[in-house]
């Protein structure tokens, strides 16, 4: 039977109705609220905000609802919204040293000013399914909050190490405009600001796997987690007409700074180097993986032997974006009739020639 070539319009409309029905699920079950997603699937929302490059919890939650929980689809919705937003400028650098801490752990010091603050973490839970959670309505006992750390007294580990010159200084703020790969096409070699932006937007799974590969010998960086801190920071902005910084509000971020080995050179004394990761909300895995890959991508700058995937910025930056990746992989399901027809013709011709040649050889 000849399959209709026309009729696509009706098919698409039907598919969208089916999608809406599938998204809603069993109508006997109450519809999930955006506030429930934002409040109870908070880490997923954080990830959508991070990879979507837009800090808006409600919007990210709505995108997740619309996307039926498909993470990349939700990121897609947020990105497509973000791209329409006007841009007023860049904020002042965040002062994460003044963060209102919800969690802060250092793997390099047993104790340090500001202390170790575990906060809400899966780290030391035993992964045994809690079947009691299946029964709804049970109220959780209120958490016994840890003594609130004095934020002003929790300097960053890299700052503490920096006092002795044991770690490279943070690059000075030269007031240069910060790159934005959503406004300028990425050019190789890319500077660190753009690399960090690409990694922050990059797919968590991909960045994670790259980070893991450096731990298994493909571009080793000898990392220690100097510190992970999670909490709220103030965002400040200098409007041109005012000429001084005004606070815009607070946002929750996760910052990871790694302390990596560097043996020095003839010109420089041995010291530690840095890898940096920053993500919206509570996104520890992402921030850590980002810091490891950031450090791996500095191989050239630090004169390290390269060659591993995580050290190759063209490889990493060109492939870390989930939207680009999913777009190109999934586009394979679009019609390719004409290209395939051309290949088909060629293969048939070559097979005929091959058969002819074999027959001649046999004769």
């Amino acid at each position, binding site marked *: 039977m000849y399959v209709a070539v026309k009729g696509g319009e009706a098919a698409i409309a039907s598919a969208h109705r089916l999608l809406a029905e599938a998204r809603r699920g069993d109508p006997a079950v109450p519809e999930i609220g955006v506030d429930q997603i934002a409040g109870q699937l908070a880490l997923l929302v954080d990830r959508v905000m991070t990879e979507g490059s837009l800090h808006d919890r409600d919007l990210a939650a709505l995108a997740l609802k619309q996307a039926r929980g498909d993470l990349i689809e939700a990121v897609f919705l947020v990105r497509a919204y973000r791209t329409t937003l006007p841009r007023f400028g860049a904020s002042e650098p965040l002062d994460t040293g003044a963060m209102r801490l919800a969690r802060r752990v250092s793997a390099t010091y047993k104790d340090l*000013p500001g202390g170790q603050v575990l906060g809400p973490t899966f780290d030391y839970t035993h992964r045994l399914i809690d079947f009691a959670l299946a029964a709804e309505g049970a109220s959780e006992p209120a958490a016994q909050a840890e003594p609130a750390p004095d934020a002003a007294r929790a300097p960053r580990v890299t700052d503490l190490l920096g006092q002795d010159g044991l770690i490279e200084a943070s690059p000075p703020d030269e007031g240069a405009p910060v790159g934005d790969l959503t406004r300028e096409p990425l050019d190789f070699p890319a500077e660190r600001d753009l690399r960090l932006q690409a990694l922050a937007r990059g797919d968590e799974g991909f960045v994670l796997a790259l980070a893991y590969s450096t731990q298994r010998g493909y571009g080793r960086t000898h990392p220690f987690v100097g510190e992970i801190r999670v909490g709220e920071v103030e965002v400040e902005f200098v409007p041109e007409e005012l000429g001084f910084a005004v606070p815009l509000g607070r946002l929750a971020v996760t910052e990871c700074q790694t302390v990596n080995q560097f043996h020095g050179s003839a010109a420089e004394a041995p010291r530690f180097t840095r890898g940096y990761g920053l993500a919206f909300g509570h996104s520890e895995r992402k921030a850590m993986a980002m810091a490891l890959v950031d450090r791996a991508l500095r191989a050239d700058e630090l004169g390290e032997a390269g060659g591993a995937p995580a050290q190759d910025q063209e490889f990493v930056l060109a492939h870390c974006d989930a939207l680009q990746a999913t777009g190109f992989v999934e586009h394979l399901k679009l019609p390719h009739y004409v290209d395939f027809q051309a290949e088909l013709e060629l293969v048939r011709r070559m097979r005929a020639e091959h058969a002819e040649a074999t027959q001649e050889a046999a004769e």
Partner: protein
Amino acid sequence: MTPRVRVPETGYNFAYLDEATKRMIRRALLKAVAIPGYQVPFAAREMPMPYGWGTGGVQVTAAILGRNDVLKVIDQGSDDTTNAVSIRAFFARTAGVAVTTRTRDATVIQTRHRIPEAPLAEGQVLVYQVPIPEPLRFLEPRETETRQLHALAEYGPMHVKLYEDIARHGHIATTYAYPVEVAGRYVMDPSPTPKFDNPKMDDCPALQLFGAGREKRIYAVPPYTRVRSLDFEDHPFRVQHFDRPCALCGAGDVYLDEVLTDDAGGRMFVCSDTDHCEARREAGHRGEGA
């Protein structure tokens, strides 16, 4: 902490793993003991804690633990670091075995990154948590290659790496996970213990078992086995030395943690092995910060 017995968690086998899995692990352990320093592949299971938290060590401990064992768990030398607390609680819950913080009272000691300061005795088992079991991994990332290098006892690349360290920096720049040669044959990763602990592995009366869960390898050093840290005649192996004793107990021959006390450069150095430090203080030793 006094040893105490609790009722194990119901719904799970003794010490969490099923008996068939334990038998598989014990077979790997027996092979590992028979070929000291050789990495035996084993079918590591997914455990209820993440890879990297000590799933290899936990599986080894689960496979060897008996009802009469007394378990000690340390991380960075300390019994009260979060992960040590968590693993100890896991076995107290799933096996109901007695737990202790005292090195001498323990029959099984699971450790991450340290060997206790107090000498171990015959009959004790030290279980190491291992992240990367392959000592040649950072010279050759491919497993197919490193297996062959071990088979041929081709350890030239490792010696070249150590030599290059000396040529570049004047000394060997490996401070932890310092490679050792076991029983004159296999080069082995001692897990990321500071090299300070390497000499304790040599001729040790206790059985030393190593479990790497994510990498699915088990290896072992039987009691009284020669464990030699790789070095050169003109650059003999040396351990770290601290220029001050523990601020709490005054011990001078131990590994110390640096603790930052303020943001103005204040710091103190204290025993990494908290049980050793407490025992010394109970015996009346005092450091200058105590």
